[in-house]
Every structure is written in structure tokens, then in C-alpha cells.
């Protein structure tokens, strides 16, 4: 792949386990990457995209993402996001971002109470954002999910806002694009962004869908969006 000058910084908490997959994914797309330990208090100079990687930060104690939000690095993350910096939270990263108030809603225990780990098809709901701009509305992508607390909840007013501002990024569907909800999420929501469209969060793992031999390379089209910033 072509080299880009995109610099991606990837957060690592105790219990994070997707930081190296995320690093592989972005380096495959030509970006330079750096893994940032949560004790750090600043985001590296020149970071174009900050990724809160998946895993089980602090063993998911209390609630998924609840303790990570008080790690030293999170103050810098909030400042970075407030200045318009781009932030992507994947899986546990999404949970950390909702717990921190950087994204609306919360992630509850899956309705079926099982940990779900499988490929799932997702439908692009909105693409007027940097993350999904390479895809079209209605496109279907095949991306793995692996979570216990992926049941997205938001109250009615919040949901109305999400819809009004095109903040719903992706929903869980079947191969034909009809709603298929694996975990009980409100409106089958798999990912959202903030109103300003610079903070993104999703439960599925695009960084695990980078090689056709591993089941899908649809993650490329998603993460590529960040390359042309």
C-alpha cells in the first residue's frame, strides 16, 4: 500500500488487547503508528487520529470502560477531541468513550447474556463523516464482532438527536440488509459519532477485517476514510 503521512496514536490500558491488530491495520494502510501507555499525559505531537483500541481495560471491573475513563491519558484525550482531533473507539474503546461522555449513550450487557464472537454484516447508515466517506449509504460490510457488553442504549430524546444529526454510523443487519440485532441494541445500532463528527465509536472490529484470508477485508474501506484527512 502507498505510504501516507497519517500518524495514528493507539491507546493502551491494562487489559487492552487489540492495540497490535489496530497497529497492523493502520500500518498496512501506510500510516505511521505509535502505542501510547495510559499513564502518559499527552497525545503525541502530530497525531492525526487517536484510536482507543479494544480489549478489557481494567478487566471490565465495575462496568466496561468505567475505570479507564480516569486514566491519566483521558484528560488529554478529552482536550484533543474538544479541539476537533479525530478519535476512534473500537469495542472496549467505544465503551470507554461513552463512559467518558465523549459519545452519547451507554453499552449494556448483551440481551442474550452471551459473549458473541462472530462475523456480522453491518449497514452504513450515514457517510457524511470522515470515517465512512469511502462507503455509500446502504452499503453492507462484513466485520467481526466480539463483545459481552455491546447492547447500545440511548433514551428517546438522545435517539432523536442521533437521527437528526446523522450520528448513527452503522447498524447490525443480515446479508440482505434487513435488521438483525445480535445483542439488543436500540435500533440495532452498532456505531455512532458525536454531533461534531470527530469522535467515532463502534462495537465491531474493522481492524480484524483487513485480510480476505481471515474472512473479510471490508475493514480497509472503513479505516481508509481516515487516510485522506
Amino acid at each position, binding site marked *: 500500500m502507498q505510504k501516507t503521512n497519517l500518524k495514528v496514536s493507539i491507546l493502551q490500558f491494562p487489559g487492552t488487547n487489540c492495540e497490535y491488530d489496530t497497529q497492523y491495520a493502520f500500518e498496512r494502510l501506510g500510516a505511521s503508528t505509535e502505542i501510547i501507555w495510559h499513564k502518559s499525559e499527552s497525545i503525541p505531537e502530530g497525531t492525526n487520529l487517536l484510536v482507543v483500541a479494544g480489549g478489557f481495560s481494567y478487566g471490565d471491573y*465495575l*462496568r466496561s470502560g*468505567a*475505570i479507564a*475513563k*480516569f486514566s491519566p491519558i483521558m484528560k488529554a484525550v478529552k482536550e484533543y477531541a474538544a479541539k476537533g482531533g479525530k478519535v476512534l473507539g473500537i469495542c472496549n474503546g467505544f465503551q470507554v468513550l*461513552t*463512559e467518558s461522555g465523549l459519545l452519547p*449513550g*451507554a453499552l*449494556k*450487557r*448483551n*440481551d*442474550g*447474556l452471551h459473549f458473541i464472537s462472530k462475523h456480522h454484516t453491518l449497514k452504513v447508515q450515514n457517510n457524511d463523516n470522515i470515517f465512512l466517506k469511502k462507503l455509500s449509504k446502504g452499503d453492507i460490510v462484513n466485520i467481526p464482532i466480539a463483545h459481552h457488553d455491546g*447492547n447500545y*442504549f*440511548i*433514551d428517546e430524546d438522545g435517539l432523536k438527536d442521533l437521527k437528526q444529526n446523522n450520528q448513527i454510523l452503522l447498524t447490525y443487519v443480515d446479508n440482505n440488509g434487513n435488521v438483525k440485532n445480535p445483542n*439488543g441494541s436500540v435500533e440495532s445500532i452498532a456505531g455512532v459519532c458525536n454531533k461534531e463528527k470527530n469522535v467515532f465509536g463502534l462495537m465491531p472490529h474493522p481492524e480484524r477485517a483487513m485480510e480476505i484470508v481471515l474472512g473479510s477485508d471490508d475493514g480497509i474501506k472503513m479505516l481508509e476514510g481516515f487516510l485522506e484527512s
Partner: protein
Amino acid sequence: MIKAIVNISLKAGVLDSQGKAVHHALDSLHFNTVTDVRVGKQVVLKLDTEDKEQAMKDVTKMCEEILANTVIEDYEIELV
């Protein structure tokens, strides 16, 4: 020394799937009088103070900031 007992549960209107599963299990054990089950968690804190008013303020702040996620959860505090 004050002991604070914090009970955290999902808000009314937020589906409690664990409660539902437990209810189902109770049903299959023929505990037919059960009409609703809510599963929550309890956090017990020991506070090095005798000031109940201040303790209540502190624990409320703890609940708002970390112990509960007020988007989906309610909390009740009992000081003993």
C-alpha cells in the same frame, strides 16, 4: 467510621436482561409468585469520618462520577 451501602440497578425502562433470565430460571423452578426480578450490584464503602452529611455528599459524588453510569443506572445510598 461510617459504612455506606450503595445499591446500583438499571433504571426503570431500561431492559434488565439478567433480571429477565433469573426470572425465567425462577419460573422453571416453580417459584410462581415472582412477578419481577431486577439484578443490580452493591458497593460497600467504609469511610473514615463521623460526619454523615458530608459522607452522603461524598458518596453521591462518587456515584455520579464512577460508581453508577447514570445514563442507564439508578443508585441508592444507605449510611450505617
